[in-house]
């Protein structure tokens, strides 16, 4: 999957699941703050990532993710591994 496709798909499923404006899901924006995630929401985040992208990030992975760009890097790395 190309990076632009990952971004397109991610914007769609995250905006639907977390009910946020897709326009706010910008590469440089903070993922946790933009999606307003609490500890329970991270459980749902893993579920929708697995459903839509076929990978399952761990708690350790999320420690290194601040922005959406960080997240796209992780997805790209996993899908192309």
């Amino acid at each position: 999957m190309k990076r632009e496709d990952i971004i397109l798909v991610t914007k769609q499923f995250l905006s639907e699941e977390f009910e946020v404006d897709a326009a706010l899901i910008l590469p440089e924006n903070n993922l946790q703050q933009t999606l307003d995630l609490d500890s329970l929401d991270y459980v749902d985040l893993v579920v929708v990532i697995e459903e839509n992208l076929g990978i399952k990030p761990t708690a350790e992975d999320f420690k290194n993710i601040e922005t959406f760009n960080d997240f796209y890097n992780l997805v790209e790395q996993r899908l192309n591994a």
Partner: protein
Amino acid sequence: MEHRVVITGIGAYSCLGENLDMILESLQLGRSGVIYDEERKKFGYRSCFTGMVAEPELNPFLSRRQRAGMHQPARFAFMSTRQAMEISGLDADFLNKTETGIIFGNDSTAGAIVETNDKVRLKKDTTLIGSGDIFQNMNSTVNMNLSTIYKLKGMNFTISAACSSGSHSIGMGYLLIKQGLQERVVCGGAQEINMFAMSSFDGLGAFSVREDVPSKASRPFDRDRDGLVPSGGAATVIIESLESALKRNAPIFGEIVGFGFSSNGDHISNPNFDGQFRSLNMAMKQADLTPADIDYVNAHATSTPIGDSTEAEAIFSVLGSKVPVSSTKSMTGHECWMAGASEIVYSLLMMNNNFVAPNINFENPDEHSAKINIIPNYMEHQIDCFLSNSFGFGGTNSSLIIKKFKK
């Protein structure tokens, strides 16, 4: 010091209507909420009937996080509680600053549990279930969701007492307020309506298979009844001390004056005259009333052959043959965990609009129901005081008496 306990808010989301105006109209017209559900037959049910309510649309009212932990019992209970809160004049700001309890009746979460475990079967990984399912799966689902949404800060627990759950929830709230331990309690009952909830009950052969006309299937007290019709939804009854109600100028729909209860200590599913008799008597003694003071009885009668006969004998023994009696389950079907609360709402609508809702489909009495005064058609009638019965599996019985409020 004992406190008088009054009802200051009511709401219901039922097969008779999704709000009180619709429900009042159904009660007056004797309109049934029972449908024929073909899916149940395909699934393996013996009976195809159910009362039906629509899945409520919660997005306009609740956030994603608030909705995540809700399946049918909590969704339905939110709809009825929202109405009751509004009628009672209670808002989030007031509730956040005061101590309001919640005691709700609920006795299953079958639909939610089936859906959760289907996900695990598919993915073989519990971490892909999602965060909301645990709060949908637990029997206290209504309490945990509503207490969080409304920021309730008083007593908070669930009553599981089979088909008496809703009635006992009001009774327990009544006792707490009467003793001065709570000022206000949100009581009620919720009943899921999906087919996973009732398959094992259907398997006992307790449901009606009178398949010609759905609205004729539930026929409490009628000689030719052949079983109950399952149903569901939710009802909310907000109760509080008279002092609190007057202080905030809340509407008062009635005053609770008696709560009788008993356990049969007998068979797990069969009713028992002695248990019902003791429950009725206890409520009457507590309220210090005579049979002539009771203007209406909302019977538990579910349309099963043995249950209705036993209740008819208990009503006759305690209250005699004259008091008007009807079972609104003739229209709703059996709302099970919700019934004890919804039937208080239905009876309050009757009391405040001067009528008795009909026991539809009562065409011929049997030897037991012939002893009491069953009302088959809409009847204008002044009700100043009514009694409502609820009896459940395991022999758990509850009888509530409510009077029109007088200072």
